[in-house]
């Protein structure tokens, strides 16, 4: 159904509209959701469609706005709190970690906090140290939170709907370069399950587990690897918490090698966890890739070194498979096509 091909951002928009039609208690809020930029287009005119109480702007008050969402959720509503940058979640950490993740437990089951936190990784166009961070590693550390990090338009819609309907606090890790990816999206309402990974491409020589935008880069790397005779299985975890350790391990049992590629740092990150969890069950040769362990530089030539890319992913995978290096020639970087400035 080629008429149902759309971007991930459009899929988010479609999903939220359908859920807001279905359930009156669902509402969006956050800085800029009702302006003409409309949170990357994903909340476009929702206030006109559903009224100003269901899509509204806020002051710059990430701490209290997170608490506000928690209070509204305790009262039975389903807030979708939108952050144009994941970096700003650091201002809401106390509410997310000390309250949202713990409320049901410390209140002995009397209280639920079904909030959805949408946060976008702002990589591209020289965002620098404070506007480019993927920080899902921090949140995976905290029991009580659920986390999605979709890479396909299909999963964007399905994860959003699942998050809205779920009684637990859920963080959706988005990526503005992923927002522009296109793919088939069914019209009907559907959910994507928590705790289930998705095999994006089957392969037999190595399992590449790749998160968010890195799933897209990994698919590009897999194409390069194929030319070099290496068959890579690309697995998108989709759900970072709970994590589909069984599913990922099954793939690794088949291929015998593991490469984890993240849009985040590897130390105490998803890459560390996935590697450790798989190794506990089925030890194989493995490697981790992610941000260079430094703050993100602004200038393009250093930024290019900071992120894994199809070339470095293919080279690392090749080395793991064959035990020797091989140089790959990467196609032109697509970053600027996927998101162009100024913001």
């Amino acid at each position: 159904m080629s008429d149902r091909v759309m971007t991930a951002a459009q899929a988010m928009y479609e999903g939220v509209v359908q859920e807001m039609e279905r359930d009156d208690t669902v509402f969006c809020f956050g800085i800029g959701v009702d302006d003409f930029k409309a949170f990357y287009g994903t909340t476009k005119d929702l206030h006109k469609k559903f009224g100003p109480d269901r899509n509204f702007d806020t002051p710059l008050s990430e701490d209290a706005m997170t608490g506000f969402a928690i209070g509204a959720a305790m009262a039975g509503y389903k807030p979708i709190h939108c952050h144009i940058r994941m970096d700003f979640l650091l201002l809401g950490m106390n509410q997310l970690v000390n309250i949202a993740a713990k409320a049901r437990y410390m209140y002995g089951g009397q209280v639920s906090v079904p909030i959805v936190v949408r946060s976008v990784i702002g990589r591209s166009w020289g965002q620098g140290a404070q506007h480019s961070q993927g920080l899902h590693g921090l949140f995976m550390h905290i029991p009580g939170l659920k986390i999605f990090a979709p890479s396909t338009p299909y999963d964007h819609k399905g994860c959003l709907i699942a998050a809205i309907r779920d009684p637990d606090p859920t963080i959706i890790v988005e990526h503005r370069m992923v927002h522009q990816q296109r793919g088939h999206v069914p019209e009907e309402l559907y959910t994507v399950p928590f705790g289930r990974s998705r095999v994006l491409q089957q392969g037999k020589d190595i399992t590449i587990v790749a998160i968010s935008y890195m799933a897209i880069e990994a698919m590009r790397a897999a194409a390069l690897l194929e030319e070099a005779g290496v068959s890579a299985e690309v697995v998108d975890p989709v759900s970072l918490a709970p994590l589909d350790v069984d599913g990922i391990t099954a793939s690794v049992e088949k291929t015998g090698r593991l490469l984890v590629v993240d849009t985040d740092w590897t130390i105490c990150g998803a890459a560390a966890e996935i590697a450790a969890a798989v190794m506990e069950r089925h030890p194989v040769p493995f490697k981790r890739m992610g941000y260079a362990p430094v703050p993100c530089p602004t200038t393009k030539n250093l930024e290019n070194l900071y992120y894994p890319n199809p070339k470095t992913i293919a080279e690392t995978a090749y080395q793991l498979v064959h035990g020797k290096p091989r140089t790959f020639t990467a196609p032109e970087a697509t970053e600027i096509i996927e998101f162009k400035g100024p913001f």
Partner: protein
Amino acid sequence: MPDLARFFRQLYLIRRVEEDVARIYPTDKIKSPVHLSIGQEAVSVGVCEALRPDDVVFGTYRSHATYLAKGGNLKKMLAELYGKYTGCAKGKGGSMHLVDAAAGMMGASAVVGTTIPHAVGYAWVQKVKKSGRVVVNFFGDGASDEGSWHESLNFAALKKVPVIFICENNGYSIHSRQLERQPHANLTERAAQYGIPAERIDGSDTTLVYDKVKKAVDKLRGGEGPIYIECLTYRWREHVGPNEDYGAGYRDRKELEPWLEKDDVRRLGAKLPEAERKRIEAEVETEIKEAFEFAEKSPFPPDSELWTDVYA
């Protein structure tokens, strides 16, 4: 119409429960911190008596009074302090996280200032739903230092939500006086700058607190909000734990004296006919005794409870 007998009953209940908690504390049966409200009961009672059962309050780690004043179940509270399965949070929360959703006590947090925005969010939903329900948030002079206070008041005023901010100003955050943390003792004036009707009152006068809150509640039910009331009060015991601490050096026992004179447990008790007062006291004593027995006898949670209530 304020019902003095009812006020007295609630004040007496809270005072006596906490005195018994303090008495039992050295036995180590309660193996977790307790922050007693002894001396501050009039605030919780005055406020909660002006509320409907379906109105909602959010508290702090110092919430024994709030919980009981809002009608929270006493047995479940004491069982919670004892870490028992029959506690309001199955023993998983303890004294700092009292909750009784059915009674409208929506929870208490041990991180200072964190429930202020919860109350705003809860109240915003009431406004949108036009439920007529009112939300109250209790917090201290210390909590008012936190950024969440500013952000929450600003947003509550912007959205005109039906929340009453009750600042229980006992003059101290742990051992720090208000003027050691704030340049002026003018929290009410600060709150007023957000366009919130704000008033500072004597929080030891249950009837006064009741009257002010009653008027506020009436306004809020009509769709106006928020309102801020600073209740001056005094913590008689140490910040945490069962004892007095006038020998610790940070405050003098002289400070306590005027508050002892204004103690509404005594003042209101004295206004009741003696027989009635005695009857109430006897009833309350029985209730407390039964609740402690309930707590003592209840089982600890089964091991499997470690794993429940994390995810739904």
